[in-house]
């Protein structure tokens, strides 16, 4: 690992060769913060990013920006625990992925619409992934907007939403199961998209799709 630099409230800890965990605040409550995470994966290297626990977005405005650049022949695995949107939160998440044409990426995001029994707070996420400068996936989600939160067109009756973007040498196959679809994108990548009533089911659905999207996954 070349550099690992973090300032509170965001703390990064190397937990193995090429493995980093987000700990402390970044993996705990998030309220009124502005967190910035920049990841550079040099050509031909690999990095995995996890978190020790789920992130709880607390009432108030918070901003989380993540930028990841993945070089030629490099691989990045990013699968932190879910973000839970507590009632009253107002979270903005912005993710930019700049990928080299032969970079391989596994990028998972999971959102939980409120703690048990409470309505969801607000959240607006945007992910922009480009491969060699060409757009691969641009996707915004707005959660907790009273105009749309219970729309059968958007999240239906789900309590959690998640997606995993995979790039690399993947089969271009479509798969579908209850609440989960494996969607080959127009460009070189696949999106696994899932809706679920709870986090356990969400993870199960995503993992089902991820294994079909990338048959080399365990």
């Amino acid at each position, binding site marked *: 690992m070349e550099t690992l630099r973090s300032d509170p409230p965001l703390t990064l800890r190397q937990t193995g060769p090429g493995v980093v965990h987000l700990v402390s605040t970044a993996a705990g409550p998030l309220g009124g913060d502005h967190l910035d995470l920049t990841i550079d994966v040099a050509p031909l290297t690999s990095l995995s990013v996890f978190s020790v626990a789920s992130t709880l977005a607390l009432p108030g405005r918070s901003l989380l920006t993540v930028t990841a650049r993945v070089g030629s022949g490099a691989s990045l695995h990013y699968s932190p625990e879910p973000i839970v949107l507590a009632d009253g939160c107002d979270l903005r998440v912005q993710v930019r992925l700049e990928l080299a044409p032969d970079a391989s990426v596994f990028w998972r995001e999971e959102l939980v619409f409120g703690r048990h029994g409470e309505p969801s707070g607000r959240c607006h996420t945007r992910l922009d992934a480009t491969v060699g400068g060409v757009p691969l996936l*641009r996707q915004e*989600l707005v959660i907790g907007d009273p*105009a749309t939160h219970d*729309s*059968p067109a958007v999240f239906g009756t789900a309590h959690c939403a998640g997606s995993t973007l995979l790039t690399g040498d993947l089969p271009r196959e479509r798969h*579908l199961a209850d609440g989960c679809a494996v*969607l080959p*994108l127009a460009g070189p990548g696949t999106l696994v998209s899932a809706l679920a009533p709870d986090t356990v089911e969400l993870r199960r659905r995503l993992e089902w799709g991820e294994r079909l999207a990338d048959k080399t996954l365990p």
Partner: protein
Amino acid sequence: MHGDMAMLLLADSRLPAGGHAHSGGAEEAVRVGAITGPEDLARFLRGRLATAGVVTAALAAAACEVGSNPQPGRWQRLDAEADARISSPAQREASRTQGRLLVRTTRRIWPSESLETLAQAVPDGAHHPVALGAAAAAAGCEPRQAALAAAYTSVTAPATAAVRLLGLDPVLVHRLLADLAPALNDAAHEACVIQADDWSDLPAHAAPALDLLAEQHLRTEVRLFVS
């Protein structure tokens, strides 16, 4: 300028461009019981407008802009921006089919450089909002009018389909559509905020449920609608 008249023609469900056979996910939503009556339908339409509708409007507005100075490279770049915003292959196919039919129809109504260059730059069929914007430019519309037509058709198609499939009272359903007027205006407004050649920041609202419905629809044996 004859933009108003052209906008009405482009937004009319009687425009002979194949739109009548698309339900925008409503057929599958009806089949799986996600739309059973006017209340569900109202929520469906609102959600569709806030996601696919807003994105479609923005792309159509951008395309209308391109249509005033059309170049093959610009069409291809904008079409790629549309591609990146539609993750479901079923929806991409439906969008390209509709786009292809729309270009076929409108280039005979409004022969223009805008539509000819688009047909050449994206021969297998541009995405529907890109085609709609190009046609709007050809017909003398402003980007805002293109955006309105796009946002409007994004909700009228599923509304009409629901009337046909569930036998809903058409007057009641039109009332639901009328209730969407402020949201429709907002969508068109948002669509025109960014009008540079950098389209990376255009809205990209996703609707995971629509993606699932679209994929499932293709696997459903009895289908009356293309999408």
